[in-house]
């Protein structure tokens, strides 16, 4: 059987019939003519009726007068606002403890796009959640005014003053009992001082920090090992060897944007002297970070302690490590230990475990290898998470005992995220005053007596201290949309402060601290204030608790047949932003599924649950329904569909948090997935996100999980990703060039292909020729670009039902390719968007010339000319063209015109949400909103290109690189994307293609002579293994392919 070396699905791997058929059909369905037994449901007569009606309607509409439009200028125009010209304000994305300095683009008073702040420590990087946060501002489910619970439910409170009075009275009544501020991590210096003032006013007041996903293990371990209760900062940019035990530091762990930036610094290849950091990943499920790793090993979730101890022993720790049965894993630990020791302190070990003992061992290892004070920095502490689990457990106990008189909840949502939400809800009922400051009526807020909604961060004043000494400022970019009030203002009011509100407090605080208005204004304008260089310091390691930790880890309970891992999805995380349609529709990098959570199992385990034969697997791949598993542990059970991910440990079942929200959370979150938080365990000190023994049974039920992986396929064209190992690349820098030459050599070679590879003339590109380069070595698949693209280009959200019909609209997708064996495959991510081919196959087949080529090398799409034949999509070798099967955007034709489609089940409710007048404020006014029946695709952010050219023209100077950044390029935390004018010899893109990246540069499907304007830099993995499709070595490459073809031919003959 002919096997593809890189595969997106099992079907592709084995070239099955179902897969081949699926790939052959560009469009999943026939034209939407519904047939029943008597023939077409829509017969000719109906057709004529509709034709007549629509002609009449069109005539009627045309004879109407053109509506009168009004132009209403300001009464008093502020000097710095020009309608139609965007303003940019530096502010800071803050979500619970997450802090990322950003710049908000404000058009005509509305924030419409978030970019990273290049002055900040994240150096302009963003995450999917940062990009999506602007949509949350316009979330229809936000609480719009203060509310008070009456008999039946919440009712609007007349004014904040009235509420303040009631709360003040209740606070007096609660005297003697505890008054608790229950918040998610707060790292704002001013809010913390406000809280201190509040505590001073009410002596019984207490501040409890509760994080949805806890990092208590690290915090407490550092207290034990170093006397520092907190999280040190890590320097992945200084680490030549990185060993991670399940820490998804590129995806979800602490601040992935910061870490990804650091990590990328050591992964960027300098072709003259190629070096890279070496990354070992030990984990149970396939994480985003694992996908970037050079060497990846899986272990049972319960085996973590043993693995850590084994590594500790190998790096010289005085412990007897438990034996590790898995030979591959044991060898991996040996190799990691050897390299850690050799790195001379330029190495780091991290673990995603929330177990104090495991983290103590991690500290011990880091101390042993000399990382303490080098890559693990106790001089600058991270403030992202501060919750200590035992404190929250104590609080729940106190509340149940009736010792708490008042609870103020900000950011936290324990009814949903706590392991026993009902217990917390019951406890809350015993507290006479409960106030929530959350922005929506989430599960916890619903149980409170008052809701005093806080502003969205884009409406707020504030500050944040992400790491000690690293300050970021928040300034409002829009007047509060609703009657909301800052959390700290409420506290100030109740503590009887003389300061009227938080804004005044905040300004006074910083003006006095910075020494004047000018310094303050400057700080606001920059958005950040950071030390010139990070303070790096070690701490003295206290090994006293080590013996105890080793003993406890060694005695850890052995896992059962199936073990549950609770993880955070890259997009949804802990579920705080679950009602964000952009995040919900962003496919998970590994599973490529969206709108749900599910139980991830390995292909081996799947056999047990009904996916053993090829036919069953085919069924699994091509159709959305997946087998539902029932997972039971400690009396709780949950039913979830299974998703097969190769590279998952065979005893592991992994389920993501953040799903299964209550109806009030919003229309996007509603009905998506199940809540896995109840399965979180508590070991007396910290929460455990691993359940060592769960019972799993197969049910008869099926459940639709929509995945985008197999939507676009390259049919049977040769591999589109190129990869090799660092060793091979060092030995043979021309490796990729030779590979390319094998394909295109006879047709003019690399330089002559355009001219000699075709009969057609070569067209001039005077002035500008746009080009993009993507470095597969830097891309970690996080998906920030996907959301950024949606935000910039008004890309429609289609909802789960339509994704299931392959109708997703993303202009930019990140393809995930597996290679290697089924147990331990490697993963390569490849962002794929319109390649803007200079010899584009789509352009030739358009009957109305709606898609054609510009003199700047853009493949242009003209929506108002498109008649929707979809020939172009069919002829696109990269499968990047998207068809508007429905009027996703309502187009204002008439009111409620989408409601029937939603009721009928064609569309999901999220479409109504996206069409709400409030939500539509997020639309970019420079980009047309597409209507039904037209094709769309990546435009290289042409609106930005045009604007950049105009700026240069106005300044009467040539275009330079800094003028133009596409949305994906700007969002990327690792700078994997380079874009610019190829004709400009000084441009980065020209340098990448002709100098810096010359040896790794390649074009996807170059041999079909479509002349793409998007190039890729091949991936290099720092490993001694042979990677990708080059098992037989490079020399044999040509022959191998030849053989493959022959095999395929015999196959076909059968």
């Amino acid at each position: 059987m002919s096997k593809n070396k890189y595969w997106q699905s099992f079907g592709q791997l084995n070239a099955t019939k179902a897969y081949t058929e699926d790939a052959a059909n560009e469009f999943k369905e026939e034209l939407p003519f519904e047939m029943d037994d008597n023939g077409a449901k829509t017969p000719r007569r109906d057709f004529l009726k509709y034709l007549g009606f629509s002609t009449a309607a069109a005539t009627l509409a045309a004879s109407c007068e053109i509506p009168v439009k009004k132009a209403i200028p300001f009464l008093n125009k502020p000097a710095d606002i020009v309608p139609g010209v965007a303003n940019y304000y530096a502010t800071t994305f803050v979500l619970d403890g997450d802090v990322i300095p950003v710049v908000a683009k404000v058009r005509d008073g509305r924030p419409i796009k978030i970019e990273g702040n290049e002055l900040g420590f994240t150096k302009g990087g963003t995450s999917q959640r940062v990009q999506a946060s602007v949509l949350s501002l316009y979330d229809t489910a936000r609480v719009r005014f203060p509310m008070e619970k009456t008999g039946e439910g919440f009712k609007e409170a007349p004014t904040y003053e009235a509420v303040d009075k009631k709360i003040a009275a209740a606070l007096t009544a609660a005297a003697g009992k505890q008054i608790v501020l229950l918040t998610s991590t707060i790292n704002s210096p001013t809010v913390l001082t406000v809280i201190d003032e509040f505590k001073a006013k009410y002596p019984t007041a207490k501040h409890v920090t509760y994080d949805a996903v806890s990092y208590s293990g690290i915090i407490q371990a550092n207290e034990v090992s170093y006397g520092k209760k907190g999280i040190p900062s890590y320097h992945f940019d200084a680490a030549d060897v990185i060993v991670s035990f399940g820490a998804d530091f590129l995806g979800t762990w602490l601040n992935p944007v910061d870490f990804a930036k650091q990590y990328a610094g050591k992964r960027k290849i300098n072709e003259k002297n190629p070096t890279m950091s070496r990354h070992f990943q030990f984990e149970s499920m396939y994480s985003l970070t694992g996908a970037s790793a050079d060497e990846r090993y899986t272990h049972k979730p319960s085996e973590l302690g043993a693995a850590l101890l084994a590594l500790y022993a190998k790096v010289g720790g005085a412990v007897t490590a438990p034996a590790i049965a898995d030979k591959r894993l044991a060898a991996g630990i040996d190799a990691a230990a050897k390299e850690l020791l050799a790195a001379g302190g330029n190495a780091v070990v991290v673990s995603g475990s929330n177990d104090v003992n495991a983290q103590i061992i991690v500290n011990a290892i880091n101390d042993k290898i000399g990382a303490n004070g080098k890559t693990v920095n106790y001089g600058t502490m991270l403030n992202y998470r501060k919750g200590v689990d035992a404190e929250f457990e104590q609080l729940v106990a106190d509340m149940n005992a009736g010792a708490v008189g008042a609870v103020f909840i900000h950011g936290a949502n324990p009814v949903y995220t706590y392991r026993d939400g009902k217990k917390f809800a019951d406890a809350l009922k015993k507290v006479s005053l409960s106030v929530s400051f959350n922005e929506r009526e989430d599960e916890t807020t619903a149980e409170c007596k008052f809701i005093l909604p806080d502003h969205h961060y884009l409406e707020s004043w504030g500050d944040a201290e992400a790491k000690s000494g690293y300050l970021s400022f928040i300034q409002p970019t829009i007047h509060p949309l609703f009657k909301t009030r800052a959390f700290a203002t409420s506290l100030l009011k109740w503590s009887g402060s003389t300061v009227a509100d938080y804004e005044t407090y905040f300004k006074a605080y910083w003006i006095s601290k910075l020494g004047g208005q000018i310094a303050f204004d400057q700080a606001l304008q920059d958005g950040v204030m950071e030390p010139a260089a990070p303070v790096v310091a070690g701490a003295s390691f206290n090994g006293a608790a080590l013996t105890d930790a080793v003993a406890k880890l060694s005695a850890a309970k052995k896992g059962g047949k199936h073990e549950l891992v609770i993880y955070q999805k890259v997009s949804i995380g802990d579920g705080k932003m679950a009602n964000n349609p952009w995040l919900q529709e962003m496919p998970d990098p590994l599973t490529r599924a969206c709108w749900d959570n599910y139980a991830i199992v390995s292909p081996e385990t799947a056999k047990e649950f009904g996916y053993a034969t090829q036919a069953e697997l085919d069924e699994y791949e091509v159709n959305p329904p997946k087998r539902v598993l029932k997972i039971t542990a400690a009396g709780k059970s949950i039913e979830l569909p299974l998703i097969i991910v190769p590279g998952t440990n065979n005893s592991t079942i992994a389920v993501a948090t953040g799903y299964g929200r209550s109806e009030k959370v919003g229309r996007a979150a509603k009905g998506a997935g199940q809540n896995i938080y109840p399965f979180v365990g508590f070991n007396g000190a910290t929460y455990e996100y691993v359940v060592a023994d769960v019972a799993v049974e197969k049910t008869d039920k099926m459940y639709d999980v929509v995945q985008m992986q197999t939507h676009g396929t390259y049919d049977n064209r040769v591999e589109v990703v190129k990869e090799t190992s660092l060793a091979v690349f060092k030995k043979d820098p021309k490796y990729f060039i030779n590979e390319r030459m094998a394909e295109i050599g006879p047709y003019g070679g690399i330089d002559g292909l355009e001219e000699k590879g075709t009969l057609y003339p070569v067209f001039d590109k005077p002035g500008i020729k746009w080009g993009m380069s993507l470095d597969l070595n830097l891309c970690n698949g996080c998906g920030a670009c996907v959301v950024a693209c949606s935000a910039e280009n008004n890309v429609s959200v289609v909802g789960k039902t339509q994704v299931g019909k392959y109708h997703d609209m993303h202009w930019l997708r990140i393809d995930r390719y597996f290679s290697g064996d089924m147990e331990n495959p490697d993963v390569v991510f490849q962002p794929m968007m319109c390649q803007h081919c200079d010899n584009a196959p789509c352009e030739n087949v358009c009957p109305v010339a709606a898609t054609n080529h510009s003199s700047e090398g853009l493949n242009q799409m003209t929506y108002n000319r498109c008649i929707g034949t979809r020939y172009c999509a069919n002829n696109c070798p990269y499968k990047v063209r998207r068809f508007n099967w429905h009027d996703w955007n309502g187009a204002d034709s008439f009111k409620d015109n989408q409601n029937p489609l939603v009721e009928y089940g064609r569309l999901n409710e999220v479409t109504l949400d996206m069409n709400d007048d409030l939500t539509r404020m997020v639309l970019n006014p420079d980009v047309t909103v597409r209507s039904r029946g037209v094709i769309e695709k990546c435009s290289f952010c042409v609106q930005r290109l045009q604007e950049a050219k105009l700026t240069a023209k106005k300044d009467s100077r040539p275009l330079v690189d800094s003028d133009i950044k596409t949305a994906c390029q700007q969002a990327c935390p690792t700078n994997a994307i380079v874009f610019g004018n190829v004709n400009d010899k000084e441009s980065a893109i020209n340098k990448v293609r002709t100098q810096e990246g010359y040896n790794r540069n390649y074009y996807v499907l170059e041999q079909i002579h479509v002349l793409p304007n998007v190039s890729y830099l091949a991936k290099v993995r720092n490993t001694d293994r042979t990677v990708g499709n080059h098992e037989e070595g490079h020399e044999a490459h040509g022959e191998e392919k030849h053989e493959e073809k022959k095999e395929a031919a015999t196959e076909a003959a059968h």
Partner: protein
Amino acid sequence: MNQPNLLLRKSFTLCLFVVTLLFAGNSFAQDGKALFQTNCASCHAVGKKLTGPALAGVEERGPWSDRKKLYAWIHNPAGFAKTEAYAANLIKEFNGILMTGFPGLSEKDIDAIIGYINIEATKKPEGPAATTTADQPAEDNSLLFGILAMVLAVVALILLQINSNLKKLTDEKDGVVRGEPVAFWKNKAYIATGIILLFLTGGYLIAQSAIGLGRQQNYQPEQPIYYSHKVHAGINQVNCLYCHGGAMEGKHANIPSVNVCMNCHMAINEYKGEKIFKEDGTEVNGTAEIQKLYKYAGWDPTANKYTSEGKPIEWIKIHNLPDHVYFNHSQHTKAGGVQCQTCHGEIQKMGEVYQFSNLSMGWCINCHRETNVKFKENGFYSMYEKFHNDIKNGKMDSVTVEKIGGTECQKCHY
């Protein structure tokens, strides 16, 4: 088969040629006009004394016949006034107000401005008369031809009828037996011809009006305040950019906010100029219109202060582009140096504004085909090496907007 096409193309080219000729006259001295309006018009008029003297015949006065002196004066009035008594007197005459210096204007620019002033000074008197006489006959002719065609058609019909009657008579005479004559309204040939004619004219009209859907050339809605561009931009020579500053900065030219109106109208509270008439002949009370403005602004003219909150004026938007069109004013004004009047017509002569151009795509494209970019002047175009070489080698003499891709779809549609 090719013949009609060729004819059509030829006649189209001819039309285009004629149109080009017509426009070519207008574009003469455009640079001087632009420079005059951006730099001089706020203080000077050609034929009228404003803050500064009228500029008509400037070259014949004082030292200005010497161009060198004029340059020196414009570049540095204060310096020049010290050396030349005429200039010093001029300052005295205008209450000691010294002209603003324009060191940025090159000598070529100043020449262009003088050129414009000279043309303007000579053409002023017969200007409007010439246009009316040019317009009138065209309209009359078409009407005349129409009536003539109708008359001819009726005559032809009558003749045909007579012809058939005569034929009938001769037939009867010859003894040819024919059926009962068919009345002409039942005659199939007539009916067929009629239907075909109806179909053709109907089709033509439908196609024409379909093309015109959403277009609103000559649209002139009644605005909440009778604001006369003629009074402001024409007679009083207020620079367009004073109110529509956005035109140089961004996408929208922007209707000025009320505070911009009040900058002047705090002082100007009555209208004393010549009478203003609406299109239908009714007279407009300028002072009453200013009062309306005060109401919007919340200004009390007697107390001379703002007394109420005010509210923005809901102007009716005249120029409406479809949503799928991206248009940026600054692209045309600042980068392209196009005059407001090129698209908006002689706005300084309009009472209430109407839409001068049809704003159709064909209209945009035509202009992009014919207009040259500032290829040598603007540093941006230094990137187009090939064109620079071609110009050097004499292969081309100018670069149109089209040449740099200005007629491609995604320059306006994205």
